[in-house]
């Protein structure tokens, strides 16, 4: 298992950077290249408008192929749930395919399929998003379908009863029978005690067992409103035409006030926390999470960018420190990863994880991971390492242009965190401006045991493990 990778996430944008004159010769070629070959429309792209009901529409024109990605993002994710109904954001996401006042259950998927398209949806801690990838001629129909279920979803006990079982199967598959997921679930609820990030997105099984169709209906009524949503379209489209279609289909929908969002800030952690999980497995697994700053002020923050670079130095590519030193060099790790995501609505963490190599222990691996942090605290990072991070970020943004979906996800993701797609260029520039001193500075500042939580997998022999007791049998 690789650790979380950061090089292609929302902090690494795809739009064109300005020329960086401080670069080494090879790097300069890079920047020039990116600058010179960008098709002209890139400079005007994307385009944004806001309808009277508060719905924002962001369009990126990319005429490479006669296709389009259409996404609707709602700023309602598992962090907006209440205790007792954890998982309802994701359950509602499933139910969004179950029919509206105008459309029978299952008809949504059928229409998309017959248009030659693919569709799906996903729920995160911060948002819920729906998408269709279609031949461009089908875009108006997709907008019609999405606007319909933004306002007219039909929920009832019968559809709910079948779908909640599906979601419980999903939980068994993703979490209950997946040792690493169990460790992450335990880590999350250890790192956060007050903040809603402590709850799993998919929900606790007991909450799923006691959920009702009215819980889902209430969620829908609270959060599914045009003023809590935005549409992202990327593809072979004319933004004026998309704006016109958006007005036609989404324009008539009524907005309503949103529930109050309490901050629910996590109190300061004052001491190391440890948790362990037993599950059938062979290799132990370790995950260490430190509280870290998130991105709040794109222009004036420095730490989030430095943390991002630190993660990349440790685990951004095949020549990064973890691969080189821990997996290949000392052979202490079967796998090792580092991850930081500062673009989010909630609170940020910096996570290191890994599996010890054969003959090594969790303690060996923990010492090795801490040793890598210590080395940066003491010695900093090299100019070569910083240059590599920059090169990787520039290459990643160019490669990202080979995928419409990746471009749409980037726009949607940064908007979900409360920043703007307009910040994408700035984020890249800021990353490139990070100095070695700043990386060393964040390594010293954030990696203290007082803000550390550690979760480990304690592997159990498969033969001696008993099947879990049936769950989901009791329905109310």
């Amino acid at each position, binding site marked *: 298992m690789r650790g979380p*990778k950061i*090089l292609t*996430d*929302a902090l690494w944008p795809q739009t064109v950077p300005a020329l960086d004159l401080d670069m080494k010769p090879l790097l300069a*070629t890079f920047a020039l290249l990116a600058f010179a*070959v960008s*098709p002209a429309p890139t400079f005007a792209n994307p385009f944004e408008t806001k309808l009277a009901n508060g719905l924002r529409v962001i369009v990126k024109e990319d005429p*490479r*192929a006669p*296709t389009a990605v259409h996404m609707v993002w709602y700023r309602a994710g598992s962090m907006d749930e209440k205790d007792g109904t954890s998982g309802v954001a994701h359950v509602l996401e*499933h139910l969004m*395919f179950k029919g509206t006042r105008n459309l029978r259950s*299952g008809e949504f*998927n*059928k229409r998309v*399929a*017959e248009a*030659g398209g*693919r569709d*799906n*949806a*996903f729920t*995160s801690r911060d948002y819920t998003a729906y*998408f269709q*990838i*279609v*031949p*461009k001629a*089908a875009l108006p129909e997709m907008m019609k379908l999405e606007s319909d279920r933004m306002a007219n979803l039909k929920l009832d006990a019968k559809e709910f*009863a079948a*779908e*909640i079982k599906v*979601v419980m*199967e999903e939980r*068994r598959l*993703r979490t*209950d*029978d997946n040792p690493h997921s169990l460790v*992450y679930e335990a880590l999350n609820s250890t790192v956060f005690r007050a903040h809603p990030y402590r709850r799993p*997105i*998919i929900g606790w099984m007991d909450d799923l067992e006691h959920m009702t169709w009215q819980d889902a209906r209430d969620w829908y009524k609270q959060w599914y409103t045009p003023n809590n949503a935005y549409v992202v379209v990327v593809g072979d489209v004319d933004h004026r035409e998309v704006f016109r279609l958006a007005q036609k289909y989404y324009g008539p929908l009524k907005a309503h006030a949103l529930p109050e969002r309490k901050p629910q800030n996590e109190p300061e952690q004052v001491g190391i926390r440890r948790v362990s999980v037993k599950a059938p*497995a062979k*290799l132990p697994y370790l995950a260490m999470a430190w509280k870290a700053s998130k991105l709040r002020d794109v222009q004036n923050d420095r730490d989030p960018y430095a943390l991002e670079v630190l993660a990349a130095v440790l685990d951004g590519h*095949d*020549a990064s420190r973890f691969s080189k030193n821990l*997996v*290949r060099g000392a052979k202490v790790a079967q796998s090792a990863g580092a991850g930081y995501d500062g673009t989010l609505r909630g609170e940020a963490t*910096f996570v290191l994880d890994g*599996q010890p*190599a*054969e003959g090594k222990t969790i303690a060996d691996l923990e010492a090795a991971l801490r040793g890598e942090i210590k080395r940066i605290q003491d010695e900093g990072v090299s100019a070569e390492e910083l240059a590599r991070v920059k*090169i*990787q970020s520039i290459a990643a943004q*160019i*490669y990202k242009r*080979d995928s419409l979906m990746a471009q749409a*996800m980037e726009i949607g*993701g940064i908007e979900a965190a409360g920043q703007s797609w307009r910040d994408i260029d700035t984020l890249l520039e800021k990353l490139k401006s990070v100095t070695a001193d700043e990386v060393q500075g964040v390594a010293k500042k954030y990696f203290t045991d007082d803000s550390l939580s550690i979760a480990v997998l304690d592997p159990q022999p498969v033969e001696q493990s008993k*099947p*879990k007791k049936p769950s989901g049998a009791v329905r109310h």
Partner: protein
Amino acid sequence: MKQSKLNAPHPHPRPGAGLLVGSLRSIIVGRSRARFALICLLSLLTSTLALAGVKIEHWVAPSGAKVYFVETRVLPILDVQLDFAAGGVFVPAGKSGLAGLTQGLLEAGAADLDEEHIAGRLVDIGARLGGGADSDRASVSLRTLSAKPERGAALDLLRAVLSAPTFPQSVLEREKGRNIASIREAETRPDAIAAKRFAAAIYPGHPYGVSPTVDSVAAISREDLVEFHRRHFGARGAIVSIIGDVSRAEAEAIAQRLTEALPAGGAELVPPPVTKPQRGTVKIAHPAAQSHVHIGLPAIRRSDTDYFPLLVGNYTLGGGGFVSRLMKEVREKRGYAYSVYSYVAPRKLEGPFEIGLQTKREQVADAIKVVDEVLTGYMAQGPTAKELAAAKKNLVDGFALRMDSNAKLLGYLSAIGFYGLPLTYLDDFPAKVKAVTVEQIKAAFARHVKAENLVTVIVAAD
């Protein structure tokens, strides 16, 4: 990773693509399961030419390698992939894992470069090496910026790792150790156990059914890698696929340079024929909350003329995601499973047809009964006229979005080359799909999905 699968379940945006993977994992959950192994070549089977003006050029390089090239100048990038008949099917008995190790260790040292130099150099020029080995083939792919300094450096590295790998003993020992640890770990995971036991059960006595074991990996020596590379990475059998921001003349030079120093290669090996298994059920104990079920058999070769009837027919059965019969009956109506699907994955020899699902262990018998009913009904009746029309509409109208990137097109080029498909494969695709009839689907299923050969594997069975 390179296995082509017909009508796999709806791909979900991969968390692994890095788009959403944040500081804590499991940051998103979606409506359908990401089966990323299937996504790679999903496009292969369900699409055709979409980019206006895409033209596949083909020639044989002086080295003997077959080259497939698409020039596209929109993005300043270049993708190159080399495919060799160097998959697991060619590995000597008792050495399973050799194909993957040979492919994987190409980057472990080449010419006078050690693995740290290779990794560092790739990072310095922003290039990415990828690839893998499946049953039939081994692939090495490169993505690089197309500007000359980066491109030149990246192609030099690719040439070196293909032609002059050093397979250092110390790296081999380390990677064998990591492989063995992964195998031991996989032996605890219900999904991995199910996949391995299913392959073994439907391919009794055939290399397609053999998976690496602790013993087989331990038995692999450096000489085995050297010999496997010498025999199977020859220029004459190589398929070179190139797409991106270079001219035909540049592509010709690139293909020749990448293949001129490859080893001579051995005689073409013909794997033993596949024999069909006897109908039966394999039950494996495991403490998981869910049972993992695979039902299937060896079905068709990539060259079989029943390919299109099976492709189109499988869409309605279990390949069309939420609109398929299996999804409707097993998931939507009864809530038995989150993921339920069927696919056909043709190979050089008979590749598998498989139905898969996971369900709460207490209800696995009920879920299998539903699958049996759906399959039996479908075998007897085929799709309705309406279902067939819907399947064709999705497959034909969906061309465009399955060919809308260089990465996806590269997959087609390599598959056309490796499986010897006509150069007009993409152009012909809509007509071939449209021509399929209900009778052809029924006949193809009757020929290739015989009840007497269907094997059921259940992990976490009570």
